[in-house]
């Protein structure tokens, strides 16, 4: 599904190399986790995949089901099925959460040549999904993420994901800022979306999330590269011993 080959990325503004040859393939139906020290380039990878400005790809490629992602505008990537749950969800004063969700759902449907969702169908769906994430009606009415607590923002990201039903879900530290119960809700939200046709890339620092969302593959990213790949046991190793051993081993 997602195929990243030898991806090199530097900042547009300054001559700083952040990703230094990332190779990663996520097959449909699989959950991959990425762990790695602060500043290793995990968020940068997620931004480059979703099309944020400010980065230059100097080498390599990234494709989704064979389509060149790097050539597409962010909205085209979204319509193609890429979704990023932001590490820091953005506050948008003046735009109601509900309006935002509906605009996004219908924009993607339109881009794919599907009919727009009727107001009633949309409402029904959003209410049901919000309920399972314990997002109350008031949060749906408020401006996007404005005045939301850290955990509420993360749950709101998952609600968007649930509504948009993307093919390739990238979650950047969606577990940070969540209390134990909220983490379960979020994990349930993710697990509910797990199916044959959908891939996940879950960026996290903690084993705890992976207790709930069982990954198929775990990668360790350090200094702009994937330095080690293994099974779920790799996450446990990090949890117990930190990164020192792994980094020493690869250097």
């Amino acid at each position, binding site marked *: 599904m997602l195929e990243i080959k030898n991806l090199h990325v530097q900042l547009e503004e300054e001559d700083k190399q952040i990703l230094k040859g990332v190779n990663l393939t996520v097959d449909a139906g699989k959950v991959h986790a990425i762990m790695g020290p602060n500043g290793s380039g995990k968020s940068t990878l997620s931004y480059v995949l979703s099309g*944020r400005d400010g980065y230059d790809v100097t080498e390599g490629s990234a494709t989704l089901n064979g389509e060149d992602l790097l050539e597409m505008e962010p909205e085209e990537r979204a319509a193609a099925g890429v*979704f990023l749950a932001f590490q820091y*969800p*953005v*506050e*948008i004063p*003046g*735009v109601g959460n509900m309006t*935002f969700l509906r605009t*996004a759902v219908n924009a993607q449907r339109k881009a794919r040549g599907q009919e727009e969702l009727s107001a009633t169908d949309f409402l029904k769906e959003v209410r049901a999904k919000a309920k399972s994430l314990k997002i109350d009606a008031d949060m749906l009415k408020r401006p996007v993420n404005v005045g939301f607590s850290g955990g509420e923002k993360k749950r709101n990201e998952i609600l968007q994901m649930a509504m948009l039903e993307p093919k390739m879900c990238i979650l950047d530290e969606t577990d940070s800022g969540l209390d134990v119960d909220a983490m379960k809700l979020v994990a349930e939200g993710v697990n509910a979306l797990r199916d044959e046709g959908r891939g996940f890339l879950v960026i996290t620092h903690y084993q705890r999330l992976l207790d709930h969302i069982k990954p198929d593959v775990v990668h360790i990213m350090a200094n702009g590269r994937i330095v080690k790949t293994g099974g779920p046991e790799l996450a446990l190793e990090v949890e117990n011993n930190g990164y020192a051993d792994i980094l020493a081993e690869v250097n």
Partner: protein
Amino acid sequence: MALPEVKQTATEARLATLTMPDAGCTRAAREDALARVLESGLPNRRDEYWKYTQPDTLVAPHAAPAAVLQDDESLIFDELDRLKIVFVDGVFTPEESDDLSLEGVVIDRLEDICCKDIHWAKELYGVLEARGQDPVQRPLAALNTAFATDGVAIHVTGKPSKPINLIYRHESPESDVVLHHVIRVEGGAEATILETGPAASRFNKCMEIDVADNGTLHHVRAQGRDHERRAATHMFTRLGQESVYKSFTLTVNGVLTRNEQIVELTGDDAVAHVAGACVGDGDFHHDDTVFVTHDAVNCESRQVFKKVLRNGATGVFQGKILVKAGAQKTDGYQISQSLLLDDDSQFLAKPELEIYADDVACSHGSTSGAIDETALFYLRSRGVPTKDATNMLTLAFLAEAVDEIEDSSLAEAIVSRLEGWLARRS
């Protein structure tokens, strides 16, 4: 003191084109106003108060022609139940207007107030305008009082069931119009006044509003979209105890607009909110000049002005809060912001506070910025195309001003006009 020669000459040239209507009972007020004009002269670009807006075309002897906009957008508020008072090129047109009788309000044409025994209007005409000349002179308003050719006197005695809509149609590309309205809201009474339409190629409008204790006046205005029209408007409002005045103005297009709001809070616990949203593209200059005077205890005032500017458009905001000695517990708020959609557009702001009481809370802020790139990316990453995302963020930017409109159906009508403007540019 003699006026500078240029000013003297320009003032005389303008006066030479005007004839004072032979309007019996307002005659004295008109003569007084003319004296004020002669004393101050009409504004020119050297005047501090006109530093950011060139008054030349507003003062020139004749109006520059302005094409009448022809398109198929329906008239704003068309779907709402309201009492229509129509002026075509500045002339009250009864055939187009509704019957002016409505419970809770008495409406008269200005020229009829003399033959009727309507003392309140005679006592208001030119009075608030004259008060508003101090500490800053507003000669175009005095000129209006002296030479206005039409207008209405609206006496709100109860709570009329629907808004009163002054509709200004623009039909002649040569029209040069001076209108003057007076409004008196009695104690406990409440009304909504709507003003819509481009009015004229050049429009000078003055409105004097006297709100008695416990009275409430809502004012919502949508200035017409004719690209080449010019307007200088003044709203003079005096507020009694526990009275409320809430005014919102939408300006879409127009080559030059100067809207002045002069508000005096003279009774304790009064509330005044003045707000505006404007969107301009290219040859567009929009000036909001506001002067709020707190002269009583525990009053609240808000000024909320938002401007969206593109293709070299200019926005101006001059806003002042004056808190007089003794006006304790004043709560004054002022915000003016512009969203610049490109580097060619500009926003000039002069926020001012002048405070002579010690127990007050006043804040003001002014900002100018581009579309928030992070928010834009967030929307696009969810599949919203760039154009739509930009429009959403633009409407979101204007929302704080639009939110000042209490009536939701009026607010919705305003938002749909803004959406229309954005859509025409997509």
